[in-house]
């Protein structure tokens, strides 16, 4: 997808909303808005935290996206085929749990805290994500 002034402006605006939501989660509820951890708690796959709070947050994600679409946000998307979704999902779920976080918990909440663990994890998953896409491009898996 080509970036444009519009995509960058939308990215910044959406990013600020994500950051404000994570800030509210921290200052109001004392919790880090790490989506993989909250999802594991909501799906009964973790012993930690309040399941009610986690479930409420997780339900809010699709509901908020639906509201944004209803309000006219451009939400066109193109997805990879099913095998990529399945394999990618398995890796993302397992890796996020083993590595104690994902793009939100490490990438946003941890990096802004200058946590050494999150800075390392974010650098590593961005690097392996880029390597993976480069490998897919080299092998012709990307059109």
């Amino acid at each position: 997808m080509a970036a444009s002034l519009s995509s960058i402006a939308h990215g910044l605006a959406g990013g600020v909303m994500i950051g404000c939501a994570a800030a509210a989660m921290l200052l109001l509820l004392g919790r880090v808005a790490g989506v993989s951890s909250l999802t594991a708690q909501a799906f009964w796959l973790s012993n930690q935290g309040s399941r009610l709070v986690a479930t409420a947050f997780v339900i809010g994600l699709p509901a908020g996206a639906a509201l944004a679409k209803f309000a006219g946000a451009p939400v066109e998307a193109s997805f990879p085929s099913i095998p990529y979704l399945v394999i990618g999902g398995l890796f993302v779920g397992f890796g996020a749990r083993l590595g104690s976080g994902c793009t939100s918990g490490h990438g946003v909440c941890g990096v802004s805290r200058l946590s050494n663990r999150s800075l390392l994890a974010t650098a590593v998953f961005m690097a392996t994500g880029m390597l993976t896409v480069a490998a897919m491009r080299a092998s012709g898996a990307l059109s």
Partner: protein
Amino acid sequence: MIRAALLALACGLVFGAGLAISGMTNPARVMGFLDIFGAFDPTLAFVMLGALAPMSVAWRLKARLERPLAAQKFSVPTATVLDASLVVGAVLFGVGWGIAGLCPGPALANLALSPLPAAVFVSAMACGMALYRMLRPNAPSTPQKQK
């Protein structure tokens, strides 16, 4: 408890709306950011910048608070050790992120926008999380600081 759940729901709503508005619910755009040897798309970096700004302020404010405004205590990660689990987990996470162009937040938000592919990814992601729990049933979701 009900108040905490409603506040968390509100946070999730704003977070999910932000994901949709930012374009991060579009896997093609995320893959574009990771595609540094192809059609690189820097949008994700601006999303990160936008999100990091309020969160940086939030951590400073948190340092001045005895407890959260609407909960009993702060419950934030305290680990500082750089261990193999962290690195291997991040490696695997990055590989999956690159393969599908989705991470947990956008995948869940997409349940409302593109239900079919999102449901496939979220189901597989839950299986990956369940597999981790089977292999490490007693592991806390974040290692605690050694006292």
